């Protein structure tokens, strides 16, 4: 590197640039949070959804599935699963019917032994997530 570009200049770009873009990031984040009420389907959040999110978390569903494309890639996307299955009842029936010992040679979802209330919560939670404005993602119903 040429002598005209000194260490001091590099340092100033580091401090100035980082600070500027950090502040810009905070500003954009602030704007995002203020725009979310129109996008994030918060009106659909009920006590059942709250329970559902807890059930979702304490059974580590994200360890196999994706939710809005984030998580593990071992099992299907669930952000649009209520639409894909046609109804919350179908989603609940699927979760309930998982064999405890698995399926020979195949991937299988564990049997979590959820109560009716917990099952309903998970289904309500997934339906709520399905109502978030995701800029039309995923591309099709298969997720």
């Amino acid at each position, binding site marked *: 590197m040429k002598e005209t570009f000194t*260490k001091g200049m590099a340092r100033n770009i580091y401090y100035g640039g980082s600070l500027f873009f950090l502040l810009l990031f905070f500003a954009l984040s602030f704007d995002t949070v203020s725009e979310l009420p129109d996008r994030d389907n918060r009106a659909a*959040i009920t006590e059942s959804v709250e329970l559902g999110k807890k059930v979702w978390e304490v059974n580590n569903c994200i360890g196999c599935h994706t939710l809005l494309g984030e998580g593990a890639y071992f099992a299907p996307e669930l952000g649009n699963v209520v639409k894909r299955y046609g109804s919350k009842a179908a989603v609940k029936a699927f979760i309930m019917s998982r064999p405890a010992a698995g399926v020979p040679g195949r991937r*299988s979802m564990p049997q979590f032994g959820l109560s009716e209330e917990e099952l309903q919560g998970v289904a309500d939670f997934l339906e709520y997530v399905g109502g978030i404005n995701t800029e039309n993602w995923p591309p099709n119903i298969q997720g």
Partner: protein
Amino acid sequence: MKYQSQSVAKLYFIAAIGLFVGQILFGVTMGLQYVMGDFLFPYIPFNVARMVHTNLLIVWLLFGFMGAAYYLVPEEAERELYAPWLAKLMFWIFLVAGAATILGYLLVPYAELAKLTMNDLLPTMGREFLEQPTITKVGIVIVALSFLFNVGMTVLTGRKTVVTIVLLTGLTGLAVFFLFAFYNPVNVVLDKFFWWWVVHLWVEGVWELIMGAILAFVLIKITGVDREVIEKWLYIIIALTLISGIIGTGHHYFWIGAPGYWQWFGSIFSALEPIPFFVMTLFAFNMVNKRRREHPNKVATLWALGTAVMAFLGAGVWGFLHTLSPVNYYTHGTQITAAHGHMAFYGAYVMIVLTIISYSMPIMRGRTANGPKSQVMEMWSFWLMTVSMVFITLFLTGAGILQVYLQRYSDTPLGFMVVQDKIELFYWLREIAGVIFLIGLILYIMSFFVKHDDEVTA
């Protein structure tokens, strides 16, 4: 070794390597579960294996970073560590807490672990990479703060160099952004939005500062190039990192409910993210070419060059591959993401930790460098692990391209599991590459036990 207290790093490095082995064993297990779905089911279901795989990675890299800091900070600051006893105490606390957490994952169902650790008091569990019980997270904060205090006091009361200031900035950022792990609202969009403040601002932000500082330190030592030159490069690299990487967080905000303008911000800025990695590659090769001494530790030089190249490929090129929003619309959450994740973590963070271990371990064991036999064996492990990781990445990329086409792009999209069956061959090939990686890792460990009888002539 210039200062006695640097030797605490040895503990941290040994633990890091041990946990690395665990991580890879679970990785190979998961790889098998991809093709033999019922393997170990229901005893170790995939989600548990994955949690162990990713959490062990995070914990051992943190051990590696801490060890690196304890090794290089006294030498840079030209004084003993502020409180070596605290470093030793925190080591044992972190190791026991980490081991207990992993055993918790394996021995009881996750929901039971949540109950046992009173997750309801402050629910933070069950989110990707942040699966640790809340109590473990509190422990991580305590360990991180004690560590920062210890390293910070050493830096502030000693000689301050660019390397230590940058390292300290990165480590402080690591601790600060981790605090967002405690924010877990019911609102999924808010949850995801701030979850990335931990995950992205770690791996595409402050961790790169840590990586840059460690690489700069090792290059100063093995090349003997003037510190002024190396520090200027370091500033340029981390400036580019943060200028591109902070707004680059936006590439995670395309499809999770955030406003559409993130598609512009995220695409443009994350398209710049490969640049700092490219500069890092130029930096490493330039410094080695301009070296003023022939350091007898050849294999440490190999790791230093390797980490720069592989970080550029994995984080830079494979990141760019799917970062533009029109592309990401189809690739988001597929095996393409997995391919990128594997090579990026290996290239940037696994390899930088192995670089500083390779440089400092022989010194802590009382020699400038290992003998030729040991070095050659370590070089073999370098190539086996690195080449097999390239293949893991290529096979997952192949799987990902097919998955995207069959499931998302073709006129007749197929269901997830139908597609998974069709791309099984790629998962088998990935598994074979994974086993070769494991062999490379075994060789790596064996290289520590080669008898040091033949003296190295520098």
